């Protein structure tokens, strides 16, 4: 067709203000009719230079920064940073603190995937319904966070050596009350979308990432698992005692947008399993070890990574025995998953580009930091 009808490509800005860019993110798409012939991303609208700011603050003072990178999964970010500092300073966390961390991280994964799966459904055009269903469940999780840490989004709950406070008395009851409705909502969302023909033609074979490319482009999280690569840091390099819990890694078939969506839904089910096991075996004892306020870890470097909802979230810290990190680097999964945006979008239509972007599940706070 394109050989017969010649048309002039033009640049269309998708973003920074656009319903489907999930924040201030911009794709400079060169389009030829409906077809995307080139896509270039423009980021940095939300850049706050956290890595520089963190060099001026103490190790504990940096925890709120990590809340604000990936604001949809602040608990996971707290956890990744605390693990890195603990690795650097050689601090052990008591078993109760670890179990609470696991519960919080998995609740956060549920909340984040609720948003991710719902927003993806919104991008395919399922007008608001799945996202509202998922948001209803997400609100309950945020209520639990508020109950525990006092904040809904930027929880600032993890501390170096454990967690900030003991969990409230009715915490377990509330979390258990959430599991059943959450399972129902996942099944509802699956029933509404997974077998829907329109959803299938929109998401199947769209934005395909072959496994070789997925590994070579350093992808992580559901992007990597969607391509059929069994990689989950909770299994591969267990932290916080994840080796005690029985769960499975969901992997996709061919690495398209649909695979990433079903992988997210299945991960939510696995998270619920982990939460149930962690609640059943919640150990007693202290929730945190005593850590001096102005912690001065020995000189050296540490790289700790966790499986955040978006992928491999790494914190690389360099210490010079000072009270603040000499170098504080975040390995942002959203940013690195975006590196294949061009491969995913070029050649497809504008609608496919939106679906591809939605299937990455980006958070712009984490991309720009």
């Amino acid at each position, binding site marked *: 067709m394109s050989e017969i009808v010649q048309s002039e490509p*033009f640049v*269309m800005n998708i973003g920074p203000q*656009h*319903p*489907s860019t999930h924040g201030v993110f911009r794709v400079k798409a060169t389009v030829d009719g*409906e077809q995307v012939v080139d896509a270039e991303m423009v980021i940095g609208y939300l850049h706050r230079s956290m890595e520089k700011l963190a060099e001026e603050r103490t190790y504990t003072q940096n925890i709120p920064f990590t809340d604000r990178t990936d604001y949809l999964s602040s608990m996971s970010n707290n956890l990744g940073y605390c693990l890195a500092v603990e690795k650097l300073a050689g601090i052990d966390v008591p078993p109760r603190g670890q179990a609470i961390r696991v519960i919080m991280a998995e609740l956060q994964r549920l909340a984040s995937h609720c948003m991710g799966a719902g927003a993806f*459904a*919104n*991008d*395919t*055009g*399922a*007008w*608001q*319904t799945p996202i*509202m*269903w998922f948001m*209803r469940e997400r609100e309950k999780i945020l209520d639990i966070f508020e109950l525990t840490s006092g904040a809904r989004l930027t929880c600032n709950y993890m501390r170096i050596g454990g967690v900030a406070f003991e969990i409230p008395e009715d915490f377990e009851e509330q979390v258990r009350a959430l599991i059943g409705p959450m399972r129902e909502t996942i099944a509802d969302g*699956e029933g*509404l*979308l*997974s*077998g*829907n*023909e*329109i*959803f*299938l*033609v*929109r998401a*199947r074979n769209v934005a395909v990432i072959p*496994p070789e490319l997925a*590994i070579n482009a350093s992808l992580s999280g559901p992007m990597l*698992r969607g*391509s*059929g*690569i*069994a*990689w*989950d*840091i909770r*299994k*591969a390099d267990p932290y916080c005692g994840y080796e005690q819990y029985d769960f*499975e*890694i*969901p*992997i*996709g*078939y*061919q690495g398209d947008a649909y*695979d990433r969506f*079903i*992988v997210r839904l*299945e991960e939510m089910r696995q998270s619920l399993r982990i939460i149930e096991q962690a609640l059943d075996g919640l150990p007693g004892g202290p929730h945190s070890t005593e850590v001096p306020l102005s912690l001065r870890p020995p000189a050296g470097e540490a790289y700790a990574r966790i499986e955040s909802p978006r992928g491999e979230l790494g914190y690389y810290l360099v210490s010079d025995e000072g009270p603040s990190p000499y170098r504080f680097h975040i390995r942002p999964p959203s940013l690195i998953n975006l590196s294949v945006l061009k491969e995913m979008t070029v050649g497809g*239509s*504008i*609608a*496919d580009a*939106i679906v591809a972007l*939605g299937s990455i599940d980006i958070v712009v706070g984490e991309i720009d930091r």
Partner: protein
Amino acid sequence: MSLATDHWYDFRDLSNLSRVILEGIDKVAPYELAYIVAPIIGFVAAFVIFVLPSQLYVGVYGERRIIGRIQARRGPNRVGPFGLLQPVADAIKLLQKEALTPKVADKALMWAAPVFFVAPCVLLFAVIPFGPRMVFADVPAGLIFFIGVSGLPVLAAFIAGWSSNNKYSLFGAMRIVAMSVSYEVPLVLMLLCVVVFTNSMSLPAIVEFQRETDLWLIFMQPLAFVVYFIAVSAELNRTPTDIAEAESEIVAGYLTEYSGMRWGLFYGMDIGYALAAAAFASTIFLGGWSMWGLEQWVPPWLIFIAKTHLFYLVFIWTRGTLPRLRVDQLMGFAWKFLLPLAVVNLFLVSLERLWWLEAGLGDGMVFAFAGINIVFSAVAIFLWARFLGYRPESIPTRPRLVQKAGGYVPVEDPPGGGK
């Protein structure tokens, strides 16, 4: 017809009012005056009893409440009792808002587009029979009139998109034109099936046909109904096919640069067109104002409005649940799937009609035809979908689960081979 409304003072059926007025005029004034007065009465009656309340309360309020219910939220419930004054509040807010015009826009066309969009909507209701004798312009080819006029708003939408001088608007405009061109074809072919079967193009005559045979055309022409629903929802930009205003892709399509009451006109008339399409569908397929004798006891126009709103409810329902198709898939669906089915159906209906006429069979034959057509529709849809490669059972909807982390896990049973 032995309806209860044979006395001039019996206004249980509103059509009696217009008939009495018209006949009164006929006696005292030249005959031509009736042609002037009738449309005025028609317009007022249609607008007051049907379009305005429907648009405000079914289209705006009802739709938002129902979608809210689907989406696990409340919907409007603040303004007035149960939020019933919400449409009024919306209208007042829109009137207060500034209607922005971009500097680079074509100002005259951008101003004119909403007007072009509104006018055909009012015309559409002229040929719809709200009840017996209650059609305001009994055009012998009312069906053709309806199809023709309902094609006009596409032009207005294109003008709106083009004059906005915005790339998103341009995309929306091009998409709506392409989609309209594609979907008019199966739509008209399917309505042709109806015309062939009922042997009339006049909408009151089609209703009369359904009333006399005691069977609605949805049973006699199920495939035509399905195709009409899909095609009309595509033309109206309702959600499974709302690519011209695809919110997640091109922001708001041809409406991107519109604001204030100019946008409000587009929004309100979108609902108006959807209601007109629903009214048309209930006339053609759902028996119009007839309801197997119930019209003797209930004002027929109430039956008609109930059917129309029921049809509109299906629009709301699909809007609340279905994702959106891509533009090429939507065109492909029209040309590859609907068009062949429409042609085959037209052929079958013509054969049936011919046989009916040649053999001189009675009205009871329609039940046999209904059975044949229902079976044919189901089989044709299924077979044609299989032929085009539709294999829903072969697509795995659950991911694979592995216990151990490692590298790539090859797919032993690739998608298409079943799981």
